[in-house]
């Protein structure tokens, strides 16, 4: 059973197709990056998954249940891109309310709330009014709400948009921690270094259509190495990092004068720009479901 499975999920607003035939399968425990430029349809797709927006056509299931299932929603945490929490409440009160809605075991509320506040770095601010918080702190609160109750699936829509570099590092650590607990994470972002560092697989969406999807390693292609000799340069493709010493040894054995050896690999940003700037394809790059192991 997949954490998220969509088939031909489409949303049309009047004459504009916001999301066109979205078909993805995300395995449980996977950290999935959903990439795209502004207005690509990322947030609309996420809202359809969460029942905030009604699909025009297509099907989807979350944690094995159809869209809108209350049972599935008990196991899902969500940080919206446009995060806003009741500024007249404290983080403790907001989390207490969400714990009540999630029907968490009442005896565990206090510990669970303290735990998530600690994990997002708000342990000392739990009793302050949210109205006094900066945007970054409100986003941290949103993360706390999203991970409350140890959900099986966490959907984060631009989770670092209001955070400083320290906060971004904290989010990366949080995502890794969620992954280590077996939580599926759907990360909606256009911060590519962030996605590259934490995601197992990605999909790139532009104009509402998926343009490429798959495990990051497959999407970026195999790494290579650039070897500079005293009399020229050679690029050797398909050389994993662990094979570079042997390659260098073979050159040295042949008496080559090596000046430098630089591993090369396309970054996600380079690959992303390549995909986004290329002409739309009839079929996405890489098998749509190959990452769903």
């Amino acid at each position: 059973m997949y954490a998220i499975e969509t088939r031909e999920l489409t949303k049309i607003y009047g004459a504009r197709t916001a999301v066109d035939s979205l078909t993805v399968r995300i395995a449980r425990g996977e950290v999935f990056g959903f990439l795209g430029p502004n207005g690509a349809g990322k947030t609309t797709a996420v809202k359809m998954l969460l029942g905030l927006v009604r699909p025009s056509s297509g099907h989807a299931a979350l944690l094995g249940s159809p869209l809108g299932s209350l049972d599935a929603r008990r196991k899902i945490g969500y940080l919206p891109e446009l995060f806003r929490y009741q500024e007249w409440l404290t983080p403790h009160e907001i989390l207490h309310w969400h714990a009540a809605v999630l029907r968490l075991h009442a005896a565990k509320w206090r510990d669970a709330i303290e735990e998530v506040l600690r994990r997002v770095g708000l342990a000392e601010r739990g009793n302050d009014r949210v109205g006094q918080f900066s945007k970054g702190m409100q986003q941290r609160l949103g993360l706390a709400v999203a991970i409350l109750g140890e959900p099986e699936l966490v959907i984060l829509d631009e989770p670092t948009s209001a955070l400083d570099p320290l906060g971004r590092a904290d989010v990366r650590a949080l995502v890794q921690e969620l992954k280590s607990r077996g939580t599926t994470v759907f990360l909606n972002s256009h911060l590519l270094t962030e996605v590259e560092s934490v995601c197992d697989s990605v999909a790139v969406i532009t104009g509402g259509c998926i343009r490429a999807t798959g495990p990051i390693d497959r999407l970026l292609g195999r790494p290579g190495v650039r070897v500079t000799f005293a009399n020229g340069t050679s690029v050797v493709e398909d050389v994993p990092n662990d094979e570079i010493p042997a390659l260098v040894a073979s050159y040295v054995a042949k008496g080559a004068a090596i000046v430098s050896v630089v591993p090369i690999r396309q970054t996600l940003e380079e690959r992303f720009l390549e995909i986004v700037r290329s002409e739309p394809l009839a079929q996405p790059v890489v098998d749509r479901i190959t990452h769903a192991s």
Partner: protein
Amino acid sequence: MRNLLLIASLTLREAARRRLVLAAGIVTIALVALTAFGFHSLATMHQRGGATIARHDVLVATSMLEIMMAFMFSFVLALGAAFLGALSLGSEIENGTLLAILPRPLRRIEVIVGKWLGNAVLLALYAAGTSALEFGAIAAVTGYTPPNPVLSVALLVAQALVLLTLTMSLSVRLSAIAAGFVTVVLYGLAWMAGIVGSMADVFHNSGVRDATTLVSLIIPSDGIWRAASFSMEPLIMRAMVSANDVNPLVPKVPPPNLYFVWCAMWLLVVLGVGVRSFQTRDI
């Protein structure tokens, strides 16, 4: 039901935390104290141009002023209903607060009805508290109590609920400010139609009478107000109202009982339309 109460409790807590309850309480107590002073002055005024004022004249004046006070509070409740209704749902859709709430295991009907319930409790508490203070203060300084104060308060609350329901249903699709504005305009239209309807009775103009009746069916706020006003009229005042009087504050006859059945159905239908609209709205 549990989720509905969780939403309602959030609405009530917001009113308390945002000092709505405190501010409304202070202003209302000041107003009641001021009017109590006025009623006391009226009750102790024995002479007019050298002649003694009869006791029943004082009672009629007191009852008339009390109905006017009730009208003022009904206006405050009407605006309060439009204000609360527009802000509680419309502004939360606009500012994104609902984005963190709706993905939770909640049905949308629980969210909108829970908010409606929270606001309804607020309006009912305000109406009951204010009326108890005002009626109590007037009774204390003049010895006069309206014939059926509990029914009067219930009808004032009913009028506020009609406007609350209308605003909340409108705010599902309109912006908060537009929903509130439309409700206030419709409230004013219904009130004006009530006056025109009274004049149509005097001039025996059935066409205008039917048109204003239609307005009172489409927007029942004024019809309910007239029932509230009628329930506050003492017999001595009714005896003084002539057939040709056109006074929106002193209706000569209350709406028929069937009208209240209509109002209850109206409320359920309008709330139902709001719920259905909310269930199908993209957030």
